[in-house]
C-alpha cells in the first residue's frame, strides 16, 4: 500500500511540475469561461466551508413580523414567508447541497470506476455480466427510478442521496471500461506485459492514470447534474424535510411566491443555476486540459 501512496505522491509532484511548466494551465486559463467556472466553484466551496460562520442569521429562526421582506441592507436577499433570512439559508444550504452532490458523485464514482475497471481489465464473462448490469441500470430513466426509490423509501435527504447514487454510476463504469479497453490495447501496455510488469502495477501505473482524467471530468460535470436532480426531487416533494435550508427545497417552496416575493424562489434558483454552471464550465475546462484526444492528436504520425 505504501508503495502505491508513494508513487501517487510522486506522480502528484510530477504532475504539478508538469502543470506549472507545461502549457496546459495556460490552455485552461486562455478561455475565460474556464476561469469563470473555476471561480464559481471556488466561491461555492468557500461558501460551503465558512458559510455557517459568516451567515448573519440562524437559517431556521423565524421572524413573522418581518416576513416577505424584499432585499435590503439587513437582508440582502430578503426574507421568506416565515421571515427567515434567505442569505443565511443559502449559505447554510451551500454545505448541504454541495455535500449531497459530493457524496452522491463520490458513491457513483467509486462504484462505477470499480465496476468499469473490473469489467475492462478482467474481460470475458465478468465483463459481459458487469456490462449487462450497467445496461440494466442505464435502461431506467435516472430521475424516474430515483423518484420511485425515494418515493418508496419516503421523503428525506438521505433517501434522495441513496436514490440518486443508485442511478448514476453506470456512466462511470462505461467510461472507465471503455478507456481501460482502449488503453489496454495500446502499445505501452503491451510493452509492459512483455516486461514482466505485474498486473497490479499495470492497473495502477498504466490504466488508472489514463482513466483518471476522463473520470474527473465526468465527476465534475456530474456534480451539476446531481444538484439539479436533488432540486427536481425536492420539487416533486421528496426533498429535505423542513426547515432544512436545502436549495432545491427552497426553490420549490418559493415558487408560490414567484409573483409576490420573487426573491424567495429566484435567489435559490440563480444560486443553483450558477453552481451547476460553474461545475459544468469547470468540467469543460478540465476536459480541454486533460482531453485524451489531445494526446491522440499528438500521437498521430505526421
Amino acid at each position: 500500500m505504501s508503495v502505491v501512496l508513494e508513487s501517487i505522491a510522486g506522480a502528484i509532484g510530477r504532475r504539478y511540475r508538469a502543470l506549472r511548466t507545461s502549457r496546459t494551465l495556460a490552455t485552461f486559463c486562455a478561455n475565460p469561461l474556464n476561469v469563470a467556472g473555476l471561480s464559481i466553484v471556488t466561491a461555492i466551496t468557500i461558501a460551503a466551508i465558512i458559510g455557517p460562520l459568516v451567515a448573519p442569521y440562524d437559517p431556521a429562526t423565524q421572524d413573522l413580523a418581518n416576513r416577505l421582506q424584499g432585499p435590503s441592507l439587513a437582508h440582502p436577499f430578503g426574507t421568506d414567508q416565515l421571515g427567515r433570512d434567505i442569505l443565511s439559508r443559502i449559505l447554510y444550504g451551500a454545505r448541504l447541497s454541495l455535500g449531497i452532490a459530493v457524496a452522491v458523485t463520490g458513491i457513483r464514482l467509486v462504484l462505477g470506476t470499480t465496476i468499469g475497471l473490473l469489467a475492462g481489465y478482467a474481460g470475458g464473462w465478468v465483463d459481459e455480466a458487469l456490462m449487462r448490469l450497467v445496461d440494466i441500470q442505464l435502461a431506467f430513466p435516472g430521475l424516474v427510478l430515483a423518484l420511485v426509490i425515494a418515493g418508496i423509501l419516503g421523503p428525506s435527504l438521505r433517501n434522495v442521496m441513496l436514490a440518486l447514487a443508485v442511478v448514476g454510476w453506470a456512466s462511470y463504469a462505461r467510461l472507465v471500461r471503455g478507456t481501460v479497453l482502449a488503453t489496454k490495447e495500446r502499445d505501452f501496455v503491451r510493452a509492459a506485459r512483455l516486461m514482466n510488469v505485474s498486473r497490479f502495477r499495470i492497473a495502477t501505473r498504466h490504466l488508472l492514470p489514463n482513466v483518471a482524467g476522463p473520470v474527473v471530468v465526468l465527476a465534475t460535470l456530474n456534480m451539476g447534474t446531481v444538484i439539479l436532480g436533488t432540486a427536481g426531487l425536492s420539487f416533486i416533494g421528496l426533498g429535505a424535510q423542513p426547515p432544512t435550508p436545502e436549495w432545491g427545497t427552497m426553490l420549490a417552496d418559493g415558487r408560490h411566491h414567484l409573483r409576490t416575493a420573487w426573491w424567495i424562489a429566484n435567489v435559490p434558483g440563480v444560486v443553483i443555476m450558477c453552481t451547476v454552471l460553474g461545475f459544468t464550465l469547470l468540467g469543460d475546462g478540465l476536459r480541454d486540459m486533460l482531453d485524451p484526444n489531445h494526446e491522440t492528436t499528438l500521437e498521430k504520425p505526421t
Partner: protein
Amino acid sequence: MDTASYLVHRFGTSLVVLTGVSIITYGLLFLTPGDPAEVILSQQLDRQPSEAEIEAFRAEQGMDEPVPLQYGDWLTDVLRGDLGTSYYSDASVTGLILDALPLTLELAAASVVVALALAIPTGVLSAVHRGTAIDRASQLGALIGVSMPNFWLGYLLILVFALTLGVLPVAGAGSYSQLVLPAITLGTGMAAVLTRLVRSSMLEVLDEGYLDTARSKGLRERIVIYKHALRNALVPVVTILGVQLGALLNGAVVIEIVFQRPGLGMLLVDAVFERNYPVVQGITLFTAVAFVVTNLLVDLSYRYLDPRVELGGDPA
C-alpha cells in the same frame, strides 16, 4: 459482424437487460419498509389489516409462495400485456398507461423538435466560429439552459408568456398552444445538452480531411458544412438523442406537474405518492422497456447514419 447476427446478438442482450429490468422493477415492491402484503392491504382497506386478513390476502395473491414463483407469475401476466390493476380503482394499469401516454409522447416529440431546432444551428454556428464571441455566447446560453432546474424555468416562462404577456396558456393539455411552453421548457434543457454536443462533434469533424476534399471540388461552404460536416457530426448526436429520450421522461415528470398535463409523469408521481405499486411498477417497466427499445433503434439507425459503423463494434 453482419446485420443478421448483430440483430440476434443485440436482441439477445436486450432480452437479458429486460429480464434484469423486470427483476428490479418487481423488486421495487420489496423496498417498502414493512411487509408488502400488509402495506398493500392497508392501502386497499384504508386501515390497519388484521393478521387473519393479511394471511388471507397472501394466500389469495399467491404471496405465500416463494418470491421467485411470485415473480414468475407476475412476469407471465406482464408478458400477456397485463400489468395488473390499480389498487384504488378497477382500472387496468395497461389502460392507465395507454391513456396517459399520448400526452407524454406529444410533449416528448415537441421537445425534441424544439431541441433540435435550437441545437443544430446554434451548435454549428458555435463550432464554425470557434473561439469567437459568437461561440462563447452560444456556449454560455446553452450552459445556462442546462443549469436551470427545469421546473423553475417552467414557472418563469409561465410568468412571462402567460401572465405578463398573456400570449400563451398557463397550463393544461389538449391544444397546441398549451404544448408550446412545456415543450420549450423541456426542449431548452435538452437543446442545451445537444448544442454542446453538436458543437464538439462538429469541431471534431471540421478538422477532417474530407471537408477539404469537398471544398476543393468547388462546393459552397454552406453545403460543405450542412451536408458533409453535419452529416458526420450527427452520429454522436443521435446516440445522445437516444439517451436523452430517457432524460425526456425524467424531465416530463416535473414538467407535467408544472403544466398540469396528466401524462405518464404525473401518473407516476401520483402513483408513487399513493403507493399504488402496480401502477408504479407498470410505468417503471414500461419506460425502461421503451428506453431499451429506443436505444436499440438508435443503434440500428447508425448503419444508416454512419456506414462505417460495423454494427456490434464496441464503441470503446
